[in-house]
């Protein structure tokens, strides 16, 4: 038996693939921007916030980290309408990705915060910096710098996880592959190409974030 593979039939639909790539990158970028903010806030709460906040935040982190992303997504998309909260596929996707990155990011950033030498905080206090100033200027930048590689890896895991969002008809890359295979029946080829694009995105985004981190996120 011979198997003929026709990759050109899939590549001919390149505008569809390009739209998928833009969606995938867009979802990831929004989830990254909000997710890191959530993670920083939650990490602060867990390391030095009040107990009445730390307990629910810990519950959020553990709940997200110990359940599959696809179940979280289905709960938001199929479950919430029962409460009258109807989310569109892209909104449910962004929300699920953000909550996910927020939870994993919390633990990553918290590790960085805990590694701050005690003397630095005492020195900042002796300079009469406020608690807010100490956190944002003294503690946070070196903490982010320390954990940036781990955070970048997590962002990439979230990007790859966003392939699941196609299951609720968010038009990202895996959804594009699905639609293309439904029109020309080149299913295997469509998924091979989508997979290779994901690989290229993962490698490219890692490079880009390693470059961007010291310049835009935590200063030199």
């Amino acid at each position: 038996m011979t198997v003929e593979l026709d990759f050109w039939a899939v590549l001919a639909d390149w505008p569809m693939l390009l739209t998928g790539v833009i969606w995938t990158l867009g979802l990831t970028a929004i989830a990254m921007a909000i997710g890191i903010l959530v993670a920083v806030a939650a990490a602060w709460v867990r390391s030095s916030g009040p107990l009445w906040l730390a307990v629910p935040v810990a519950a959020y982190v553990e709940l997200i980290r110990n359940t599959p992303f696809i179940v979280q997504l289905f709960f938001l998309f199929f479950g919430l309408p029962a409460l009258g909260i109807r989310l569109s596929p892209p909104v449910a996707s962004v929300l699920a990705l953000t909550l996910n990155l927020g939870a994993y990011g919390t633990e990553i950033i918290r590790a960085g915060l805990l590694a701050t030498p005690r003397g630095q905080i005492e020195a900042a206090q002796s300079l009469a910096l406020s608690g807010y100033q100490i956190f944002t200027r003294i503690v946070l930048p070196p903490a982010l710098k320390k954990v940036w590689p781990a955070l970048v890896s997590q962002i990439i895991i979230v990007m790859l996880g966003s392939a699941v969002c196609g299951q609720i008809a968010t038009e990202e890359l895996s959804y594009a592959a699905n639609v293309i295979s439904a029109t020309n029946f080149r299913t295997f080829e469509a998924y091979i190409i989508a997979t290779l694009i994901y690989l290229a995105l993962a490698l490219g985004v890692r490079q880009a974030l390693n470059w961007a981190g010291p310049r835009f996120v935590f200063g030199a």
Partner: protein
Amino acid sequence: MVQFTLWDILRNLIFAAQWTVLLSLIAFLGGGLVGAVLLLLRLWRPRIFTAPVYAYVTLFQGTPLLMQLFLSYFGMRLFGIQVSVWVSVSLALTLYTSAFLTEIWRGCVAAIPKSQWEASTSLALSFSEQMRHIILPQALRISIPPTVGLLVQVIKGTALASVVGFVELTRAGNMIANVTYKPFTVFACVGLMYFALCYPISLYARYLERKTLVSDR
């Protein structure tokens, strides 16, 4: 119309959860075996296998598990291998798990001080003797917490098998939600059941990690 009680939903979900557990075990054990072979290849001297193993790990860690499941599912059919969905999801999850395990274990081996290698080489131990008596016993000890931690990731990974039609906890949740019209309750229960499976393992991994750190002090 048939009425479904909460107990009906839970009963069916618990029944489906056994397939999640079984698939996780297959993927974890299979992944462990393949991962161990890959690790030995990676450490092999001369280092002819280092680049291929590195490429393998990059490929599986750099692409979505969902795509790997699709490719395994459609690929086997395309090449005329008519197997059940069990085989195709087991294969994909095994390869996925092996990539992560081999990378974790490689890190553990790399954490063994270089002087250990040098000392054992100077004692004229062969590669296999070095591995068996010097490197692996030490690496094994530090590898247990992250390995247990990966089990959580594998269990969560099996949820994606639902997408290619494998009936486990998530798929069962989908089907039950469709017949009961109670997606909120059903998916909340599904989530809690995954939590009940994963959280104890997470706690155990954390406990092991703390124990290893303390004994290293």
